[in-house]
């Protein structure tokens, strides 16, 4: 299609105006509102005891979820790529399932399974509280982040094939040696990319986590729950903006890491 200069320009104006109003302007405004009273006011809001506790809880969840997802993600990806078994299509679909499930439905499902009245509710009578406690928040986060590592590692495993692993095995390497020296180095960038996505989603998850959290300020609030409760319960709009800005900075770092990793990944292959 050969468009006239006028058509091209008007299409450009429409696209940029839409993006400006929908994305750019609101984000600039938040940054402005956060820093209009200087950096000190922002700093005070994100270093209150409740904010520090929220940040630590968010980081604790990330620190637990990431290693679990890495181990089970690699095992699942290996089984899907290298294994030849019936029902592989079903397993593939289950891996993608979390993308299609609403976060609130995730939370509700976990309550109905692990909650005191749920099907695994007997656990609570043994003193192991899942729902409205840390294990529930971890289960919710694992649910929503489960596809990332699998889906990033899987194509790389396809790409590298089995020849190098077979060569290693022929030369007498054990399964573990082959994994550590051949497979893992080959999938490292795909794996890192999956981990970055997992970290970002874990820090940002709200719906699934708020359902299963006890929601006590300074105790069982993550950063996203802090934003919500400051806005809704405390009517502390500035505090909510400040915590949002902190989360936004973390998101921007993620985006940057993704761009860098993407270049590395495509260069490597």
């Amino acid at each position, binding site marked *: *299609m*050969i468009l006239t200069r006028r058509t*091209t320009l008007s*299409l*450009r104006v*429409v*696209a940029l105006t839409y*993006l400006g109003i*929908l*994305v*750019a302007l*609101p984000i600039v*405004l938040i940054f402005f509102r956060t820093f209009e009273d200087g950096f000190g006011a922002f700093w005070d809001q994100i270093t209150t005891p409740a904010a520090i506790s929220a940040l630590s809880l968010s980081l604790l969840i990330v620190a637990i979820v990431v290693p679990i997802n890495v181990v*089970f993600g690699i*095992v699942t990806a290996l*089984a899907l790529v*290298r*294994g*030849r*078994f019936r029902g592989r299509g079903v*397993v593939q679909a*289950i891996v993608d399932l*979390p993308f*299609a*499930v*609403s*976060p*609130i*439905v995730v*939370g*509700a*499902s*976990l*309550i*109905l399974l*692990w909650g005191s009245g749920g099907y*695994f509710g007997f656990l609570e009578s043994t003193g192991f509280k899942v729902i409205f406690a840390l294990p529930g928040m971890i289960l919710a986060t*694992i*649910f929503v982040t*489960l596809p990332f590592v699998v889906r990033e590692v899987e194509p790389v495993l396809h790409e590298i094939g*089995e*020849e190098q*692993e*077979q060569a290693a*095995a022929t030369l007498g390497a054990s399964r573990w040696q*082959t*994994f550590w020296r051949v*497979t893992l180095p080959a999938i490292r960038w795909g794996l890192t990319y999956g981990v970055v996505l997992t970290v970002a989603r874990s820090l*940002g998850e*709200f*719906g699934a986590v708020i359902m299963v959290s006890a929601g006590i300020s300074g105790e069982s609030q993550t950063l*996203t729950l802090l*934003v919500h409760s400051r*806005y809704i319960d405390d009517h502390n709009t500035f505090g909510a*903006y400040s915590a*949002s800005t902190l989360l*936004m900075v973390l*998101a921007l770092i*993620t985006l940057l890491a993704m*761009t860098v990793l993407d270049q590395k990944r495509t260069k490597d292959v």
Partner: protein
Amino acid sequence: MAAPTTTPAHPAARAASKRRLSRRTAGGVGPIGLGVATLWLSLIVLAPLAAITIKSFENGLGGFVDAIDAPAARAALLVTLGVSLAVALINVVLGTLIAWVLVRDDFRGKSLVNALIDLPFALPTIVASIVLLSLYGPQSPFDIQLNATRPGLVVALLFVTLPFVVRSVQPVLIELDREVEQAAASLGASNLTIFRKIVLPTLAPAVLGGAGLAFTRAIGEYGSVVLIGGGIPKETEVASQYIQKQIEIDRFVNAAAVSVTLLLIAFVVLFTLRTLGGRAARREEHAG
């Protein structure tokens, strides 16, 4: 090829020997790995979803229907579907337009605009809510009030679903052979004809796929609409807010029934898209 001892000429024989080889090489995880993966997926994903499905039918099929036919539940589902449909349609038009501008146009700062598209995916949904409220809420600098209105819901959902259509159309547009368009133009076809007969048919599967993903994301969305939507029953309360409230007041069957309805809608949409996409790919294969 990996088989060093024999070099079978027949592809089937080669595949069979490869299968034999891979079963005993170190790369695979073996039956234990497969078992671990299956158990893991069952415990984390399937067990909770099974629990909510069983719960939704606790009072039989009649109970399920009653639960989603309750006035508040029906209203929430209809609001959700209506708003999500609007969002998908707007995304079809503007998402395609943005992809077009990003691929075919050239201007300063284009890479920055391109990076901006991914921001809604990276941003936590609750932050999206706060961000939009700062512009369209009670403290709006332009005095635009979308707080607790359906347009407010649409804006919030447009924000979080922005990348779907753009990112699915972009690669197809880059691949699109411009020589065909030039040939058509030299044969006297108008831009409208070229767009209708050449560009649109090629883009359609990608546009539909992106719109379907945007729609399934929109029907389940919670974080970005919870603040700006206001959750007024029968007005702006979406299905996810209804589920959350029903759980809070221990009406588990109601919450489960609406949840399962959302899941079913998402599956139908995704399954239809996959079937359509597969058919389009097959047609392309035959043509090629």
